[in-house]
């Protein structure tokens, strides 16, 4: 096999895994603090639009990234207010945000670009390195930072504590709500980073294509651990890269190849069960005692 194809595959795979990996990192923070986040898909639907918009308005991809992060945090705040302050069902809130996010992208695009399903091209991009969006390489240091924050800082310890046993954490003087708000907002930040890798050149309606959900599966497969989640995201990403690069050469119908990541996710979950454990208070709203 040609060496350049292998290199191409390795780099392309990193770029394609990037959005899933960033979103999965966001999911780790969110769920470690005790909030299930099925709205990652919706967060990304918004940030993929705002990064294009922000870049064009400010004529800089870095400003676009900032806009994407800020809007990611804003939409994550909706989830935070509903699930943490008002203790509303987390799945229902996530579904509502996903419904809303589809509309936000299309509505803004219609009003800003006069087209409901796509934006205009954004010429302000990260430089291309080895044939891919160079921001994809940021995944490596950011994963390391996430690990450090979660396992080597006081903030990380507190975040994990409220996800495992909020009552005990509260007794020790940790602000449970603040920690959970941080966890959810960090998932909004991460979805902003995910948008920076996905395709900042243009927004297309539905471009997130289920990556938010795959990220959730990656997080579970990665056992709620940042490094594990990123490795799992790489598995999904490289499976998808393989599909994209060799789809035409594989003698099975393309639809079956498209199922691959989802079937893989199911198989991975089946193989995992019993070995992985969610944070003990994951999905449970915290109600302070009286």
């Amino acid at each position, binding site marked *: 096999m040609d060496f350049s194809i292998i290199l191409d595959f390795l780099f392309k795979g990193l770029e394609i895994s990037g959005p899933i990996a960033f979103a999965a990192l966001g999911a780790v923070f969110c769920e470690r603090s005790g909030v299930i986040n099925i709205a990652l898909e919706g967060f990304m639907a918004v940030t993929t639009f705002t990064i294009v918009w922000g870049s064009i308005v400010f004529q800089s991809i870095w400003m676009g990234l900032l806009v994407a992060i800020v809007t990611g945090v804003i939409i994550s705040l909706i989830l935070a207010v509903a699930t943490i302050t008002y203790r509303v069902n987390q799945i229902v809130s996530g579904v509502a945000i996903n*419904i809303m996010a589809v509309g936000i992208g299309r509505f803004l695009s219609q009003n800003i670009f006069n087209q409901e399903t796509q934006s205009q091209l954004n010429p302000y991009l990260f430089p291309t390195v080895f044939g891919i969006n160079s921001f994809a390489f940021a995944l490596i240091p950011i994963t390391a930072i996430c690990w450090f924050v979660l396992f080597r800082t006081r903030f990380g310890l507190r975040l994990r504590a409220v996800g495992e046993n909020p009552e005990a954490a509260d007794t020790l003087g940790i602000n449970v709500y603040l920690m959970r708000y941080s966890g959810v907002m960090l998932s909004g930040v991460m979805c902003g980073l995910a948008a920076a890798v996905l395709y900042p050149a243009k927004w297309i309606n539905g471009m997130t294509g289920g990556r938010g959900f795959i990220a959730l599966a990656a997080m579970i497969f990665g056992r709620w651990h940042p490094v594990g989640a990123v490795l799992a995201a790489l598995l999904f990403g490289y499976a998808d890269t393989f599909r994209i690069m060799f789809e035409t050469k594989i003698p099975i119908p393309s639809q079956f190849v498209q199922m691959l990541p*989802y079937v893989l996710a199911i198989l991975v979950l089946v193989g995992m069960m019993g070995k992985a454990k969610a944070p003990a208070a994951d999905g449970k709203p915290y109600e302070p005692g009286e």
Partner: protein
Amino acid sequence: MLRIRFDKFRLMELLAPVLGFLAALVVLLIITMIVGETPGNTIRAILKFTVSNASRLASVFSVAIPLFLSGLAVAIAFRAGVFNIGVEGQYFIGGLVGALAGIYLPLPKVIHLPVVVLAAMAGGALWAAIPAVLKITKGIHEVISTIMFNNIALALVNFLVNGPLSGRGEQSLEPQTRRILSTALFGKLNHWFQAIGLNVPNHVYLDYTLIVAIIMGILAYVLLFRLRFGFEIRAVGTSIDVSHYAGIRVKTVQLGVFLISGAVAGLIGMQEIFAIRGYYTFQIASGLGFDGIAIALIGRNSPIGVIFSAILFAFLKQAGYGLQLYTSVPNSIIYIITGLMIIFIVIINEIVTRYIRALRKKEAA
């Protein structure tokens, strides 16, 4: 005395959806004003497309039928604490299995119609069976597995309709199956309504799915509130631990309720497939399964409540088209408003529940 007090709380609980809807409406008017439409124009456009005449009103009810089935499917599962996010995939598969029975089984009409309905239910239940079994044997959370199965279902029907089951060349370039036999097609009930003096125009689809929906609603009510299994469903939904102690086989209940939910979900696409199109395609309306989650929630997971919330959702959908048609506001705003409305309703609900709890405590003291 006690009776009156109960009603007071009950009334407050019913307030949440109304307040949530109004709050969402206010946001809608604010956004449309920013875009440059007066509130008067916006409201006129909405009313014009939803309730201005019999045709519009009947259309709202027509759109509400699949939404009701979707909400019902989610609600039944939710009563047992099972989150069936897979309704989406289940109706794509259910609709396909139903359509196959309609295409390939030559039967007389009286048998064929119930057969296609049962086939669609079987298809939906089948697609729900895999995540259901994964849940009770492997403990895989249904929210994750059903999301994956939704995507698998879409790819699968896409393959089947393009490949082995393709009826392409027969009548259209668009990928679709062969035509459903006339004995299995759903006719309209409009003349029934016309007979009792309701002016339902012929282009509106109030078809056999309305009967299917009514039957399903009644069956669901009987199941949940009159049968032993329904009691077990509600017990499991309230507390798994207590149900265990009470000797209820929790896993059997979860499996059963998942299959029933999938069977009802299988019917969601029937209106479009059997009444409107007359063939199956993977391009039937998508997203109804996710609407069902919100509909079930707003209808408080009761078959009767789901009727009202399905009509509310149908109203919103039609309102979106009205805005698109008569104002400069794009249809997509309805997604934003729908999402916001759900969030508002659940939050207001929570506030009301807390308030009631505080009141009860005070009264008890």
